[in-house]
């Protein structure tokens, strides 16, 4: 109970700070939009049917914009020396991780909710589908779970946010594959039973990544 109260307090703090400035969310949104548009330029003349590349474009945009948010969440903590403050609070390190993770997932989901309608217009794909939303939520959790751990490490280096993408993408390969494939199958209108395997896998990846990151996080914030 105490654990979750700590988590809720950290999430509330991050959301309040973000609502005041809206810096991170707007940057994530514009960046994701830019990725979608650039992919249109890059592929349109060579690809017969842009709908074929739609799932890939969507997830590249989500992942790249997600990196921005993940980095930002710890850079902010470091700038004001807030991370020491967080570590002094009487909650477990795992509660700090959980709070940061929930915050990051929330921000990514908000950004994705704004991108999705624009994506539907540009690529002419149906998005009013709860199965698609489920895939997006699961994929985002998996990506942010390991991303939150690696971001906490990356901001403690000399080069700060540069390290996160090169460490995170190799680790996130399974999540990206599972999300892209299931998004593709759903957009193609295949029956949900086809996607079921991938959904189950995504769920498994989410659990594995969250558990590893939760265990590892204890050792990241130590001094």
């Amino acid at each position, binding site marked *: 109970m105490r654990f979750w109260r700590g988590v809720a307090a950290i999430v509330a703090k991050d959301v309040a700070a973000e609502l005041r400035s809206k810096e991170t969310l707007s940057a994530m949104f514009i960046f994701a939009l830019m990725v979608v548009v650039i992919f249109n330029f890059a592929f349109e003349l060579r690809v017969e049917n842009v709908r074929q590349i739609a799932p890939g474009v969507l997830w590249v945009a989500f992942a790249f914009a997600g990196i921005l948010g993940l980095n930002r969440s710890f850079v902010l903590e470091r700038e004001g020396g807030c991370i020491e403050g967080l570590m002094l609070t009487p909650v477990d390190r795992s509660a700090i991780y959980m709070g940061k993770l929930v915050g990051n997932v929330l921000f990514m989901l908000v950004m994705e909710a704004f991108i999705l309608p624009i994506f539907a217009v540009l690529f002419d794909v149906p998005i009013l589908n709860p199965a698609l939303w489920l895939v997006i939520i699961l994929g985002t959790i998996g990506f942010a779970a390991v991303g939150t751990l690696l971001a906490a490490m990356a901001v*403690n280096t000399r*080069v700060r946010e540069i390290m996160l993408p090169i460490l995170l993408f*190799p*680790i996130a390969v*399974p999540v990206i594959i599972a999300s892209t494939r299931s998004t593709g199958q759903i957009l193609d209108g295949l029956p949900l039973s086809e996607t079921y395997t991938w959904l189950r*896998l995504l769920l498994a990846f989410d659990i594995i990544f969250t558990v590893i990151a939760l265990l590892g996080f204890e050792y990241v914030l130590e001094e």
Partner: protein
Amino acid sequence: MNKLGDSWLLSLIGLTGLAVIVSLYLVFVYVPTELIMGIVQRIFYFHVPSAWVGFLAFLVAFVAGIAYLMRREPRWDMVEVSSIEIGVLFSTIALVTGSIWARPIWNTWWTWDPRLTTTLVMWLYYVASLMLRRVVDSEDRRARFGAILSIVGFVNVPVVFLAIRLWRTIHPVMFSSEGFEMAPGMLLTLGSSLVTFTLLYLCLLVIRVRIEYLSSELSRLRQLSIPARS
């Protein structure tokens, strides 16, 4: 390290040298040329052991990473970083020899087969983790981050493999990676190569850990000598 350690290392190097000579004889003279693939198949005896040593090195780093987080002894960190460096080296050799072998046999330099892709992803990750170590200033933090990364990376390898295999099975399978039966002579040669590469790994690991140990010893002595000089 002392004299005893030196003589132990020297005999390990001697043994490895002997194994290298035996294996080279087996690979280039003893073993018959493969009927279908021809002479290029001999790269197999370098390719498979390199891939094996790459994997073994990351396994050792994983174990050393856990040991470091539990015991906090710097030597486990030295083993961890040394093993990852050697692992990256041998994975590179495995990727390059695999590509050279694939060109005449599969008629392409590269395919997104699960094993190849997993090796590539693993390679990228460990290179990135070595880069992270270089940009962490505090020694204790560097060791901790290195240990976490070696654990996360190794746990991730089977997950990546599984995901990529499922991803590819939906596409038609164009090539199967193991297309030939192994004759007893080939099996013997492969076994000998595997032993040789493993010995070579041990040599490199011991030497690399010694370098790490000596450089930390050197910086400790420097620290001591600064107040004496002033």
